[in-house]
């Protein structure tokens, strides 16, 4: 029953995409993927997602650190709002950012219709991944190792580089991979703030949507297959990192 539910609901539709993508042969699949507009969208998607996960990798680790090791009033509230991007509908995420960083910005910063807006929206929706992957590792971590290093004369930076960072790496890696997968496919938060300008701010998911509206199902399917493969690779990477973490 479980297998049937999953197959009917998830696998069969995805198989339909793959079938449609290669319906007219490998050559037309390749032509659709390498069309200039498609290449520009894929490039932007990958680069913006990479920048996003690097920034959120650093800030996510830092936020997790502050939430676990620091003590201050209001920390519990801060800890609770981390999950807000998971709970907030993506379209609201986009409008939220436009309210502060849009044309009527009260602080005079307007990022709409720029490539920076792509990164900004992706930073918002992927914020919780690294924080939530690193937090449990920090909670479990043995403080004795750090104390031993400190008593042997290691400075704060050395302790972080040699002790803390290696211990957190599986969490950071898993969080970054999940965030990357999410960023590659993001749609709702991007359509309003980026303006979806071809060759400039149009990411692959928006490009796929545009192709569907134009009735170009084989083209949309071809680009979808590329995104699907990337998702599968990232999921496999997460599984691999987690199995490494368990062994260690």
């Amino acid at each position, binding site marked *: 029953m479980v297998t049937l539910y999953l197959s009917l609901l998830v696998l069969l539709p995805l198989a339909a*995409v793959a079938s449609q993508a290669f319906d007219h042969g490998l050559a037309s699949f390749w032509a659709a993927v390498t069309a200039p507009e498609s290449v520009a969208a894929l490039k932007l998607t990958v680069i913006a997602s990479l920048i996003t996960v690097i920034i959120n990798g650093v800030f996510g680790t830092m936020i997790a650190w502050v939430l676990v090791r620091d003590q201050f009033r209001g920390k519990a509230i801060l800890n609770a709002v981390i999950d807000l991007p998971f*709970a*907030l509908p*993506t379209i609201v995420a986009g409008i939220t950012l436009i309210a*502060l960083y849009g044309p009527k910005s009260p602080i005079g910063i307007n990022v709409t219709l720029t490539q920076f807006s792509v990164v900004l929206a992706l930073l918002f929706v992927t914020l919780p991944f690294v924080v939530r992957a690193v937090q449990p590792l920090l909670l479990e971590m043995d403080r004795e190792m750090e104390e031993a290093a400190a008593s042997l004369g290691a400075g704060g930076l050395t302790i972080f580089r040699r002790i803390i960072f290696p211990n957190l790496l599986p969490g950071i890696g898993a969080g970054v991979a999940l965030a990357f997968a999410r960023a590659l*496919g993001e749609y709702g938060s991007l359509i309003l703030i980026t303006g979806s300008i071809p060759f400039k701010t149009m990411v692959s998911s928006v490009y796929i949507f545009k192709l569907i509206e134009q009735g170009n199902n084989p083209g949309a399917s071809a680009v979808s297959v590329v995104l*699907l493969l990337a*998702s599968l690779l990232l*999921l496999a990477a997460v599984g691999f990192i987690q199995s490494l973490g368990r062994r260690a």
Partner: protein
Amino acid sequence: MTGSTASRWGLRTAAIAYLSALLLVPVGMIFYKTFEHGFSTAWDAITTPNAIHAIELTLLMVAIAIPLNTVFGTVCAVLLVRHRWWGNRFIDAVINLPFAISPVVIGLSLFLLYGVGGWFAGISEAGFKILFAIPGMVLASVFVSVPFVVRETVPVLQEIGTDQEQAAQTLGANSRQTFWRITLPAIRWGVAYGVVLTTARVLGEFGAVSIVSGQISRQTETLPIFVAKQFENYNQTGAYAGAVVLALLALTALLAMNLFKGKEVA
């Protein structure tokens, strides 16, 4: 010590500043923008027939997707943890797919399967409309929210172990009694947490539903689609008011998440 105190303050300030700039202030802004022309303006904007229909439709999606994915998720989790067979690894991998796949690709996949010339086109031809109608939107909502209950229930099941279940069986309970009296009460908070996540996801689903629904006003327009349309039509009041309704629902979900989280293994 002064050095470490300084770095502690530095980290704390940087973390709070980042969260404020990215999350807290923007979310605060939509509440301000919604109510800056008074409460009644915002109220009027979300009580138009179109808006009310969109809200009702969104709640209908939640009402259908939750029971389906809760029953499936619980059964699937029990199967994954308690019964070892070759298909487990496969199910485990497929369960995670909706997390990693773009909602647009999910929408397209349903569009192709049930659309003209698709493998299941026969269902629509027989008179049961799936695309541009509620059944298609339900399929999209259920697809995107499949993993949550399973993902939250599996670790709880692993944690509680099988001692109590075995004791119940030794005392003569059949497997049905064991499930209802022992297993389900033990995993209820995990399931509840999964249900909250499912709710939040279905409420906000936009990309997949946009494609299969056709976005027809007062027919297949959910609240997120309503918000996007209002924004594109330069009706900022309507867009912000709709966004605030969704944000309030999300905040409620967030509150429930924090309530359920600590109780998972109690």
